[in-house]
């Protein structure tokens, strides 16, 4: 297992370097540069030159990339991911500052997805073609078709503006910082808007996985030997049906991370996603690249988690 994980992480290195090359060139080759906003009529040319030297923009692009990449891996140094063009803070500190909020949002959305989608999927499968199954399937179709940013906007208007039940922005109320109840209250709308599409996808997947298991011989045997239906469903069928579902957790993490950028922007949630969107608007290259790299690391780790979880849950699977 440890050997497998080590080998997978080693294989991830070229992929992450590829992510770095592509995102670096797409961003740094773009017309215009981050110095543009300093180009006012009053700025002296030597000040401009100083800024260009300060940001290393005068060096050839491959050299910029190389120095960027080699410092990038030294995450134990605060300056490894560069300094924000905006406020001069080390990017690593800015990220460390913002990451907990994003992780809280993502983990809550994932938890809500698991808690809601698995029972719905089981119900739909056990009572196939019943009213409940049809209702769940229709709702899943609708939920899947509503883009999460649209849902976020509607939730904000309905729950925040019209009903006034939930806060309109942020993670904490002024004067109640750190109060878990207050944070939970702020979490409701963004988590719902992130989770609905996931719940829709997951419940379909759980239903399909459960149906496949329910049609297998050992389930019929369990019924035939007189076990109560509940026991067959939850003890025999569910445990097998959940094996493929476990891999979904790993595969959902990257999409939650990418979706967080928009959700955080809508709800002004103080996470890395909002920071990334702001950085794009302000051409804060180091922060933009940091978000892309975090996304890439998220995908690599998510896939690895999916495969390892699969092997842990199913002893028939041998990692090789």
């Amino acid at each position, binding site marked *: 297992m440890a050997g497998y994980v080590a080998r997978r992480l080693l294989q991830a290195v*070229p*992929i*992450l370097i*590829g*992510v770095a090359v*592509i*995102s670096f060139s*797409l*961003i740094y080759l*773009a*017309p*215009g540069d981050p110095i543009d906003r300093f180009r006012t009529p009053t700025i002296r040319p030597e000040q401009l030159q100083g800024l260009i030297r300060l940001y290393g923009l005068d060096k050839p692009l491959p050299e910029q990339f190389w120095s960027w990449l080699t410092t990038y891996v030294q995450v134990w140094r605060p300056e490894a991911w560069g300094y924000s063009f905006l406020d001069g803070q080390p990017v690593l500190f800015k990220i460390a500052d913002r990451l907990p909020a994003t992780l809280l949002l993502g983990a809550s959305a994932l938890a809500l997805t698991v808690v809601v989608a698995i029972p719905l999927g089981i119900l739909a499968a056990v009572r196939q073609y019943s009213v409940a199954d049809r209702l769940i399937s229709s709702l899943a*179709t*609708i939920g*899947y*078709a*509503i*883009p999460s*940013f*649209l849902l976020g*906007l*509607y939730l904000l*208007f309905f729950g925040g*503006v019209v009903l006034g039940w939930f806060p309109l922005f942020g993670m904490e109320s002024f004067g109640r910082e750190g109060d878990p109840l207050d944070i939970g209250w702020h979490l409701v709308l963004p988590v719902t808007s992130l989770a609905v599409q996931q719940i829709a996808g997951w419940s379909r997947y759980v239903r399909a996985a459960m149906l496949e298991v329910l049609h297998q011989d050992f389930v019929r045997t369990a019924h035939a030997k007189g076990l109560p239906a509940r026991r067959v469903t939850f003890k025999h069928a569910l445990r097998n049906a959940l094996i493929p579902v476990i891999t979904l957790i790993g595969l959902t993490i*990257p999409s939650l*991370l*990418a*979706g967080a*950028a*928009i959700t955080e*922007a809508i709800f002004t949630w103080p996470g890395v*996603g909002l920071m*990334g*969107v702001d950085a*794009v*608007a302000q*051409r804060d290259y180091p922060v*933009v690249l940091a*978000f*892309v790299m*975090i*996304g*890439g690391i*998220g*995908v*690599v780790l998510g896939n690895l988690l999916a495969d390892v979880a699969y092997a842990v849950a199913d002893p028939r699977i041998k990692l090789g």
Partner: protein
Amino acid sequence: MAQLGTVAPRTFDEADADALDLTPVRTYWQLARRRFLRNRLAVVGLVVLAMLIVASLVIPAMTGDAWRTALLAKVNAPPEVGVNADGSLAFAPLGYSDIGQNVLARLAKATGTSLSIGFAAVVIIVGLGVSIGSVAGYFGGWVDNVLMRFVDIVLSLPGLFIILALVSFWGGGSIWVIIVAIGITSWTLAARLVRAEFLRLREVDYVHAARALGASPFRIMLRHMLPPAMAPIIVAATLGVADSVVIEAALSFLGFGISQPEASLGNMLTEARTYFFRNPMLVVWPGLVLVAIVMSASFLGDGLRDALDPRQR
């Protein structure tokens, strides 16, 4: 009465006619069309999409510049259908916006913009996906390895965020930059599907035969392998339209895409946000159109998959 040992003479009856099966031989596409038309949701999806396309062409043609002309006299005016004082058509069943633009005309224009971006992006998605997927699948080996690692890299980019950065840095607001940004980041699914199909097809007898007869790889791929691989490509293209429309709407909603006076479902939503209390329906219409596009495209995609590839259910 027939006696034992003799065969009773029989006349040709209906059962024989059934057994003969006089139904004409149907081609693959005829069978696919029959299967498709039997799927009610898929047909509904096709009809809704067709209606949206027609509306996005007809309404702007009918109302001229109303979609972007801001009329001071019509600010937040209620719905009207009639003739203006100067004899021109006043067709605004959804009323006027906060800056006096005809909402229905704007909605139709935005639908057109969104769908054009969706279709144009899909051209890139299919073009890249088919060429990369078919080369990887046909040649296999190290070519496949290199191309698939490239797919892994593109898949590891945080989708919507990288599009946001591309559009913002390479010329915000330009429709072409949006199309290219969506296209070059979203082709991986199409490439994987085509590769899988080609990996299967290259071991099929008639492909071996074509190769033995000296056909060039390009000819084999184009003439012998691409046609039977069309089913997953068409399905991926349908779903690609829906995804691209959503991405564009999200970009414009966040203020990185299309902006006034151009109309997009996303920027209509952003604008509607600011005058929500005076006219809450302005938030509803663009959202409704967006969901209608996504849902009908996904029904259409499901229907096409079942119709074109009956093995894959």
